[in-house]
């Protein structure tokens, strides 16, 4: 499947105050892709979860928001990159109920259920990159 990007912007996330503007930007992209309120809400909630991880475990980082298309439908891709310590065991982190922080421990698997595509790459000592895509009707 070929995914093309129509529009793209990069947002630096350093403090918690950067979260609300980012959520609003992602929402704008969702609206532009023609998403229903429900899909917008899922996308923004997923963004909110992942940006918290970025701040809490990665010490901040950058987020790229893109308007994408797979030829059949439009969507929004959000990429979260941090230069934090990385995740030691991804399989474990993707299990329901696991967490190293004081959240409820359903961050990653719960977030994955809200979007259509979820990809995580991590390297110890280098950082973590999470990419999600939500399609218009996904």
């Amino acid at each position: 499947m070929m995914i093309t990007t129509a529009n793209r912007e990069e947002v630096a996330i350093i403090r918690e105050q950067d979260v609300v503007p980012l959520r609003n930007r992602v929402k704008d992209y969702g609206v532009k892709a023609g998403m229903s309120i429900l899909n917008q809400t899922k996308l923004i909630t997923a963004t909110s979860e992942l940006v918290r991880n970025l701040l809490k475990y990665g010490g901040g980082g950058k987020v790229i928001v893109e308007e994408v298309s797979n030829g059949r439908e439009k969507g929004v891709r959000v990429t979260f990159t941090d230069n934090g310590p990385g995740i030691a065991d991804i399989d474990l982190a993707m299990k329901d109920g696991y967490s190293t922080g004081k959240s409820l421990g359903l961050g990653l698997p719960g977030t994955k259920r809200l979007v259509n595509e979820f990809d995580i790459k991590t390297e110890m000592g280098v950082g973590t990159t999470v990419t999600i895509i939500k399609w218009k009707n996904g």
Partner: protein
Amino acid sequence: MERIPILKMGDFLLVTIQVDLYDQLAENLESDLINTINKHRSKGVLIDISAVSIIDSFMGRILGNIAVMAKILDAQTVVVGMQPAVAITLVELGLSLNGVISALNVEKGMDLLRAKMYNGGNEDQIDDDNDGQ
């Protein structure tokens, strides 16, 4: 620092969240609310979230905390006006907000709080639109 206003209405407290929450704001609300319950010996808390467009796991946890903490201080918490999209997203996320009691709108929430006060907190009670007790 930004804070969410808490209104006192007799035995109850009313919180209307008009802005999108972020973590610090939600944490402030938790401590402010618990302190206010204690100060006024309130019997019930009504949190109106009809203007809130997203609730993620952190904010969900804060709502749950508030309900449990209030209960310890002998106050009932009712969350009212949750948007359908928010409810579906919370369920997909795997959060069922156990311990949090909901109502469709402020009016029904008030009825529910009153009913609970007279019923000693029977949680299976469903309020009646036309009840004239």
